[in-house]
């Protein structure tokens, strides 16, 4: 009698646990759009843009110069830089089509996940 009751408890516990696990797997937030900031190819920061709550400035300094990256809820850009051409600042907010690149400072910001359903974009 006691034995079968224990058995029922164990089965119920396993059942509840698997239910909880299924609920977690189904309901957990999908991985958002993640911006990866690389300096000379080295990943220095990875930001889930959908989890950003308040604006933040990140200064990336390398042997070539400085870029100030502005991270806001859902978006990211290079706010200012001391590079000669300013292409990175002119690029504006990061989108799925092309990464933000500061060639003179070897800084690249790319978007992964969520934003794009292609493997690469030409041009």
């Amino acid at each position, binding site marked *: 009698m006691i034995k079968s009751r224990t058995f029922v408890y164990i089965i119920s516990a396993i059942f509840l646990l698997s239910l909880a696990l299924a609920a977690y797997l189904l309901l957990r937030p999908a991985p958002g759009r993640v911006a990866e900031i690389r300096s000379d190819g080295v990943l220095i920061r990875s930001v889930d843009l959908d989890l950003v709550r308040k604006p933040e400035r990140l200064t990336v300094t390398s042997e070539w110069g400085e870029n100030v990256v502005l991270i806001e809820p859902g978006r990211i850009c290079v706010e200012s830089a001391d590079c*000669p051409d300013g292409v990175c600042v002119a690029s504006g907010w990061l989108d799925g*089509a092309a990464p933000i690149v500061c*060639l003179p400072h070897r800084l690249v910001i790319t978007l992964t996940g969520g934003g794009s359903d292609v493997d690469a974009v030409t041009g």
Partner: protein
Amino acid sequence: MRRALPLMAALLLLLSACSSAPRASDTVFAMDTVMSLDIWGREEDLQAAEDLIRSLDASLSATAEGSDIYNLNASSAWDVSPDTARLISRALEICALTGGALDVTVYPAVLAWGFTIGDYRVPDKPELEKIAETVDYSAVELDGVSVKLPEGVMLDLGAVAKGWTGDRCAELLRSRGVESALLNLGGNVHALGSKPDGSPWRVGVRDPFGESYLLALEVRDCAVVTSGGYERYFEEGGVTYHHILDPDTCAPARSGLASVTVVGPEGVLCDGLSTALFVMGLDRAAALWRECEGFECVFVTDGGEVYITSGLASGATLADGYEDIELQVISRD
């Protein structure tokens, strides 16, 4: 337990069959652009591709002191490496194929406009006419590895170097057993094989008027190269001057096209053609496509119309937000 063993062994085998080669990725700064390499292979394969890119950059750059091309332009006669000679030979063939719409000797004009280092200026008409006299790819003499240039003629392989690099990297990786790789050489995409799961690569064609891509192409073992005026330009006196120069006038080509994308198995051909077809304009470009095999194209006109050659039509899908565009298919007959 004993009965379960063969079952587990079979399961393990099944699992190991599913797993593909590991992925190795890196960013390379070369050829005045940023390149991203994604290779399903070993770290050594990735390193070998990077070394190849750097060595090609060092010999093909027109601006790097000591490169084959720099030495040739400085002395007007030079023995280049056998590799560089192969590229010069192929580039001259593409110039001929396009009737000079691609011309690898347009470099003096590129310098005059300041497109090499960004000190932009608008040369006046007499200056451009004088430069145009020196632009003639057929004046380049190639004999084995010896190259001779007449007085005033300069060679620049910038319009074909990245496509060539894609071909050479793909060839190298394939010889090392890599079956899947995506090389994005500064917007000049070379897809090796298909995706690790066997499906085709999806490559986006950028909207020349926006920041997004307007359509996606499904490709295997192909280069996808776009030339567009939006890539490099400057404004002066309210006029926009872009970097794709018409070899006839030595001024920015105004052919009614905003971008040309060329897709095909040979990267160097796609690279050279994307520039040439942009210069030629839609009608002449479509006529050349009908005469030739080995490539397909997407044209976006200044008016925003999108034309696609018949070989690509079935593998193209419009991106979100671009569903209203009517794809106009160009057919062979």
